[in-house]
């Protein structure tokens, strides 16, 4: 089996999600006969051959990915999307576009991957039918012997110096939810208990320093212990966890946080750091090794063995094997995939659809080149302005000219014959890749387009109200011109995206 994973861009190849979820599993997948490739979706534009059996789109949330999914399923491949962050349970307007994308996924994927059962619940509220597999984040292998040694060294050092080294690591903030350092500050009072008990507690914060604003820094200053901030890197994280006695990982109770995977605690524990995690009991599967309250930690530190110690290290390994073993996860994933019906939407090549992306007010510019690479038509709506060249567009508001459809040379060749006869070359060889024009048809959809005015296209309530009918009219006119075509609207603007979900048929 060939498994092709597409990520959003080259930068996403290095993100924690890709690194932890997929890179750690590749070797195990290979041993089971599954070749796994991970590439940015842009490589398709550069000529990457589409020849895999299973495709997985990771955080690719745009019309191009949806259309590719349709196309690949038509060719008989299994197509899935991974959903590892819960942006869909919250009902605030900030996450509207994520919810709309989730709705648009319904019926478009053969399977979905989630990191936790909570995430599955969130997805099920939108899609009851698509099979969902829970892929636990695999842990990175480590040596039991060195872990035991590290644990002993850390405890000895802490008890002899009365110094508690604490580390917090992660993204500073999320643009949509109060998490990250906000959680650290909110639960920071717990850290005060460590100082109160006579320990010299010091906190090291490893994060993306560029995201620290004045407000966040002021929040860190409100913590009841000395704080040192360092720029996060994989190396820094590893070094800090190797030396710190304690990793502090508070979790709040909002849907986004409670659906997170266990990977932060798994990473900390595998480096020999104790984990103190107040708030939501996200790490319940690791309960024997995780503290929820600082007093329990202090009691153990003063009078007993810490939860993760030389005697329990072996059971930690067993616990990891139960929830995060790369080999187990790889086997489980392949078993799941093998149980799916193969290529349910497969069609012979001759019956495959002509495809087009209809661009709305705001669209991913790269979608245009994806269309060219995969032979889809790229249509501009009256709202479009950014992505050029298009195969077809509607000119509505040009002074002294009748509204018309303008076309690229390639598009003219794909016009229905009755339309091709009407095509007239543009003067001076055309502009912006357009070479021909045809008049708007005298159909109800054509009349809607002919009556569009500038106010309907400008940002504001008028655009929101007219968006759906103008887009639907454009689609109807183009479908008439190009024949039967499967169309997806590409719209990034949240409120227009809502309108784009269920297009009304024009006329």
């Amino acid at each position, binding site marked *: 089996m060939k498994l092709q994973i597409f990520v959003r861009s080259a930068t996403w190849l290095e993100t924690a999600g890709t690194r932890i979820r997929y890179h750690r599993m590749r070797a195990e997948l290979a041993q089971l006969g599954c070749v796994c490739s991970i590439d940015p979706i842009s490589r398709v534009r550069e000529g990457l051959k589409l020849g895999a059996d299973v495709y997985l789109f990771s955080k690719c949330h745009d019309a191009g990915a949806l259309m590719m999914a349709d196309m690949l399923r038509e060719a008989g491949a299994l197509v899935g999307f991974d959903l590892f962050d819960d942006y869909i349970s919250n009902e605030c307007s900030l996450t509207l576009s994520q919810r709309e994308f989730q709705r648009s996924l319904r019926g478009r994927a053969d399977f979905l991957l989630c990191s936790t059962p909570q995430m599955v619940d969130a997805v099920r509220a939108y899609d009851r039918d698509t099979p969902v597999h829970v892929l636990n984040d695999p842990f990175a292998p480590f040596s039991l012997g060195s872990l035991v040694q590290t644990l002993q060294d850390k405890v000895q050092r802490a008890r002899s110096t009365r110094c508690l080294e604490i580390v917090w690591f992660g993204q500073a903030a999320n643009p949509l939810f109060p998490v990250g350092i906000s959680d650290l500050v909110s639960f920071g009072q717990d850290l005060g208990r460590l100082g109160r008990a006579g320990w010299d507690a010091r906190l090291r914060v490893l994060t993306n320093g560029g995201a620290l*604003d004045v407000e966040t820094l002021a929040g860190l*200053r409100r913590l009841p212990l000395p704080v040192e901030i360092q720029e996060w890197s994989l190396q820094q994280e590893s070094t800090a966890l190797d030396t710190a006695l304690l990793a502090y990982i508070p979790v709040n109770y909002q849907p986004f946080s409670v659906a997170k995977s266990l990977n932060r605690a798994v990473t900390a524990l595998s480096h020999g750091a104790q984990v103190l995690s107040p708030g939501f009991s996200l790490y319940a599967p690791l309960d024997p090794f995780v503290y929820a309250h600082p007093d329990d930690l202090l009691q153990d530190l003063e009078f007993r063995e810490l939860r993760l110690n030389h005697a329990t290290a072996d059971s930690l390994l067993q616990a990891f094997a139960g929830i995060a073993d790369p080999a187990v996860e790889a086997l489980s994933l392949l078993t799941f995939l093998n149980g799916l019906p193969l290529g349910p939407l497969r069609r012979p090549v001759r019956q495959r659809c002509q495809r087009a992306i209809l661009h709305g007010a705001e669209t991913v510019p790269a979608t245009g080149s994806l269309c060219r690479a995969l032979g889809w038509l790229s249509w501009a709506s009256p709202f479009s302005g950014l992505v050029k060249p298009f195969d077809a567009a509607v000119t509505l508001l040009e002074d002294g000219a009748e509204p018309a459809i303008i076309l690229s040379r390639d598009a003219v060749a794909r016009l229905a014959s009755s339309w091709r006869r009407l095509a007239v070359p543009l003067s001076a060889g055309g502009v912006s890749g357009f070479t021909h024009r045809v008049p708007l048809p005298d159909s109800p959809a054509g009349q809607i387009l002919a009556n569009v005015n500038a106010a309907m296209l400008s940002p504001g309530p008028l655009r929101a109200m007219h968006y759906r009918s103008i887009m639907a009219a454009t689609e109807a006119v183009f479908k008439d011109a190009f024949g039967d075509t499967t169309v997806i609207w590409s719209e990034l603007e949240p409120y227009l995206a809502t309108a784009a979900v269920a297009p009304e048929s024009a006329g």
Partner: protein
Amino acid sequence: MKLVKTLVARLSPQKRKREIKRAHLRAIIGQSDLFDAAWYLEQYPDVAAAGQDPLDHFIAAGAAEGRHPGPAFDARWYCQKHADVARSGMNPLLHYLENGMHEGRSIRAVGAAAALDAVNKGQPVKSAPDRDDTRATVPPYATDYESVWCAAPVNWRRMVSEADQTRRTVEGLSEGHPVMSWRAASDGDQAAPHFVRAEVFRNAYGEAYGEGLSKLGTLQETRLGLALLADAWFADAATLILRFPPAGVRSSFVRAYQAADDGSLQICGEAAVRTGLPACLALRVYRPFAPVLVTCEGEGGVLRDSAVIVFPSLLRGGLHHAEWRAAQMADGHADLEAYMLELLGTVVADGPLLTDRIEVDLAGAVGSERLFQPALVDDLAAVFGVAVTAGAGTPGRPISQCTGKLTGRARAKGWSLRRSGGQCVSVPADSFPTLALLVAPREGHGVSTGRFCLAASLSGEPQSLVTMATLPAALTGLDHPALPISLPRPAIMSALGDQKRARPATIRFRDPRIWQVDPLFPLSPDVAHGLVLGDTLPDIQIIVRHDGDHHSLATCLLALTRQTYASAIEIVVIGGANDSLLRDIVGERAQLIGSLAELGWDDGDPAAAVRPGLVLVLSERVCLHDPRSLGALAAAAGGTGVASVSCVVMIRGDGHRMEAEGLAGYAPYAPEAFGGVTSEEAAQLLSLFPASAIPVGDNGPDLVLYSRETLERLWTSSGKPASFGAWGALGNRVEGMHVCLTLVRATALAPLSDGAALASVQPGEGLSDSPLTIRSFGR
């Protein structure tokens, strides 16, 4: 291409890396369609003159210099709009292409603001600077520099302290112990305030913890002695810094004491000095609500001076600092000591106290708010005897796990031994009760549940003082389902007294990420507004006044056809509508009638004139773009005692995307409801409260929904409905609550009427004889 690869391979590793990166950037940016080489050369002739490749120039220098890559991408606006991009120093276009567009970030064409203004207003207007819609633009307070800060740049002495900052318990309080064994300099000195003060504090804790606290009431006579301190502030959540004036008293020891959780006294900081006082002393104060005693002792244990910080959390950096700043602003309190003494006076006075229990409204809670922090909740119970319990709201499964940790019963400790008033105050999850609420006596408590301080979520810095009139229970249910937005309210309503003099009830900690809403759709379009509409919806008659702007009228009517959550609608267009135009808009569903008399407007019989249900008076300049608007207005109008309802009308927008900032222009005509703020400030307040109903003095005529009862009262008071919604008419003639709903919003398609020149619906004068009725429109 092969040649290029060969050449690159021959470079040194660093150069090769640089070349590969450059090629990568060229590939991404060059193919993006947002980079326009011809435009770039035309726009920046210096690049053309230098013969540089425009793409190379943009990658190497142009982006850093703030140049735009093409007409469709305003690089400076992008950095300004997305501060994290600016901070990262990344090429803005590269950021957009690799991350921003997938994150749904907005971009804007160069010069878009000016173009948009031209479209919207028909005249060139300078584009407004981008600002966060949810932030106050006018700082409500003087800065520390102007009000509090007293620079002392010279004569700072090194703090002399051998002790570490760990607290230690005072072992016994017997006479003769070096700690707390001060003596008066002379017999006469025993009556000196500083000596009495220290003795009162010692005795308060010398007996059973809690009972003695009420003895601190004696401090009203001795005063608190805060003049001993030049300044005091929290450096972090547990470190309280005391700064002493340069010319302090002669002293050998400076010590600070505070009670621990178990009631024992602890030294939370001390310093030994040779002369005078230390410049600064750092205290470990783990309990922000428990009083702190500071003593200065001379040779032989002679007590030279003392001070009691009764409520440490009022100090700068403390949890209640916003409350103190609000008191400064609203009541003109000159010094902190007076405010502390006033609070102390209320807590030790006879009579029951107001607050027995704080109930947390769980709507929008994430569980990390201050009211869920065990340390603070425990201290509230221990010091003030106030229990914190989970209340109504929309608790999901995880949050119920959190609320199980709240204390359901107050402890009989601390101030709580005072008499409980049994009052339960429901507060939003993102708030924290003020000291004024915690210590207020039940009768004449002077605390307004509609008044609160806004503070920044993470830093706790005060932002503004907000006064809102208290809503009837029927309307408090109109909160946003996803935001902690409700007003605090007591379960038993009592007379609140003069709101202007009332103290704030809570401090609301505002996280812009949670409070952020877009101005066009305050409630996400895919979410029902949560109003209970009932089985039988009222019929709504909509009177649209037409002034001749056919385009606006067409849009206004189109929006009405798309309304959901409403049953039968009848639309009456008055004011010279062009029949053929209206037919174009609404098709054959319109029904022409002869005159207004056919609607019963002129016969003076209210029962005939007003159809059962509700009447919406609407200007054609107002567009109900949100399809839930009519249903929300109708549901609010059904509230008990509601006379009229309107909703916020956006009067201008800015920016490329519709969720960009804007001004909620339908300011309520009742500035006094906002503590005397101006209408512009009131409008900003509206933008802060996206999903609530704000009582107003009157609703203007551009958009107002009347209940039938209101119309009847209007009718009988004037003989005929001569001025629906005219300025001041409702407030003067109709009892009941006039409400401005911010759950949904409308948009002004053209400038609205203003001030006294507001034209109202005046049947019989200047109207067309052929109004158009559109019956059961779109149902």
